[in-house]
């Protein structure tokens, strides 16, 4: 019970949804014996439960509890958030799940190409093979550009981090 209370708000939101899904699915089944709705409700409960579980595992509160002094205060590179370091509330539950500084990707046409290719290819379900072939070209090119530029940026980031 104490561990449940110690969970972060983020986890609790999904946990609440999961509990709701399972409870209502059970009630619904016994009042109606209707399979479609029961499966949908239980599916909702299961899916939110999976997310709640994943969140609970990467919960910053839990991490901190396990290793209370492992994390040195991050040296701020800009003054983002600096003003608040005096507030005790920034510790523990106030910390979001990912602490990235937020590097922004360069402009890229790849999402547009992937979107256009995917949309064109999808009309193949109606018009046959031709739009699938035509759509596959921008789709493949866009996906390749996307992944390679993301990879390059990742390497550049790592180099920068190692240097800095």
């Amino acid at each position, binding site marked *: 019970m104490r561990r449940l209370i110690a969970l*972060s*708000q*983020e986890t609790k*939101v999904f946990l*609440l*949804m999961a509990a*709701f*899904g399972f409870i*209502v699915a059970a*009630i619904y089944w016994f*009042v*109606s014996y*209707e399979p*479609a*709705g029961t499966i*949908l*409700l239980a*599916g*909702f409960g299961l*899916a*939110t439960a999976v997310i709640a579980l994943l*969140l609970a595992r990467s919960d910053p509160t839990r991490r901190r509890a396990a290793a209370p002094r492992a994390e040195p205060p991050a040296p701020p590179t*800009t*003054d*983002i*958030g*600096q*003003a*608040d*370091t*005096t*507030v005790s*509330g920034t510790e523990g*539950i*106030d910390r*979001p799940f*990912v602490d*990235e*500084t*937020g590097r*922004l*990707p*360069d*402009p*890229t*046409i*790849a*999402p*547009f190409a*992937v*979107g*256009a290719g*995917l*949309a064109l290819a*999808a*009309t193949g*379900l*109606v018009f046959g093979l031709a739009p699938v072939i035509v759509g596959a070209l921008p789709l493949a090119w866009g996906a390749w550009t*996307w992944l390679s530029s*993301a990879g390059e940026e990742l390497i550049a980031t790592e180099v920068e981090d190692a240097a800095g």
Partner: protein
Amino acid sequence: MTAADTPIGPAGASGAVRGERGDLLTWLTTTDHKRIGILYLVASFGFFLVGGLLALGMRAELTVPGLQFVDEQTYDQAFTMHGTIMMFLFGTPMVAAFANYLVPLQVGAADMVFPRLNALSFWLFLFGGVIVLSGYLAVGGAADVGWTGYVPNSELHFSTTTGTDLWIVGLALTGVATILGAINFTATIYGRRAPGMSMLRMPMFCWNILVASILILFAFPALTGALAMLLFDRRFGASFFDPSEGGDPVLWQHLFWFFGHPEVYILALPFFGIISEVIPVFSRKPLFGYRAMVFATIFIGAYSMSVWAHHMFTTAAINLPFFALSSFIIAVPTGIKIFNWVGTMFRGKLTFPTPMLFATGFIYLFVIGGITGVIVASPPLDFHFQDTYFVVAHLHNVLVGGSVFGIFAGVYFWFPKITGRRLDERLGKLHFWSWLVGFILTFLPQYQLGADGMPRRYPDYAANPGWTELNAISTVGSLLLGLGMIPFLAAVVLALRRPPDQGNDPWEANSLEWWTTSPPPHHNFTSLPPIRSERPVFDARESRR
């Protein structure tokens, strides 16, 4: 005292960004959440105008009994496309528009967690929407099955047009786009909040987006599944919904409404969030009962997953008391929200610029929509009202009087942040009053028509006593709604022709987006105020006084 007198946050250090207009390529290649938000805003507004014109066409046809302007086929396509556009190509992407622009700013982040995915989400939505509309070019015309696409009427045997297939494919694509967006919003809210911003210091808009995103994640897959099954039935000889082959038409309704009712809240919660941002600012008070609002939002979100079959009361295939009770219960947290908004206004210091006018109008109209919602949630009453104009009036009461008023409140409120310019107040007031009066004239008579038993989706109706008059009033009202868009569009055009002149915080507002410049620089923030409450900018402003 205006914000220009006491500038808080960084001064206009982003001159380069301010002057930047951007050519076509900039927009096609952008991964900036603010630009993507603007793209969503403009695109969904374009779809709104198309859907609105279809509605005006239908109202024109219904002014008097008989067929004057269109035949049945055209009318069926018009109400199908009107509903589809307003739900999927205007309402849902409008949520993405506001969420894209505001969530990173309100949580103090530089961008979304997945900026490129965000761009993909927009393009998928846009192309999906174009595919849906392209049905009008297809042999046989656009989809003619209603936005709910009930089987077997939407099976190939009964709806032969290719437009219906394009409708399915386009909607599936926009559904995927919406899911990608929801992943991004959830991840950004969970992963990119500025230090100090605990979940319970998050702006109410972000809470509403979070819950709406969760609903999207678990409701839209049901729609995608149902659409895939229908496409298999139509194109590849499956018979999921064909009773003569052992399929079940009621299954479609379960799947569709398991998506469809959360969808109603996906289209409502974010705009509740906008109202929750606007009313405190113009009441000069914090939101009344912040924690109760958070709880009500989560409660509405969870409960909206278990009310779907109140759309199916007349099928005699579902458990009536279960869905009646759960639909009634959802009125309680919705009521809490309304009471809390009124409580925020109470004993405040109210001012009424256009965003506040729309927010106040929202409260009045939404109360009517909520109350009629409780009426149709009672099965014995719904047996009469189902598929009549009463339901049409109720749903427009919630989605137009609620969501669209919320959207306009948001557009007037954040326009200075997005463009650095304020929309003209006189044109805004003209817009508001024509919409308020137009709304009342258009939709309140429809309650009486529905009570009298006028069915929806009829291009022609019997000349029963009073019906012609009520329909004529409704059509005049819709004309007023249409004309009301002119001052709005004029205000936008006039504002964009002026140089930007708004400071960081023209309204003396509360949340972080008002800390940075208008419009914000590419990285959003060069500094952040301390975050000790859900109103960091208010705290910073007051501590300087």
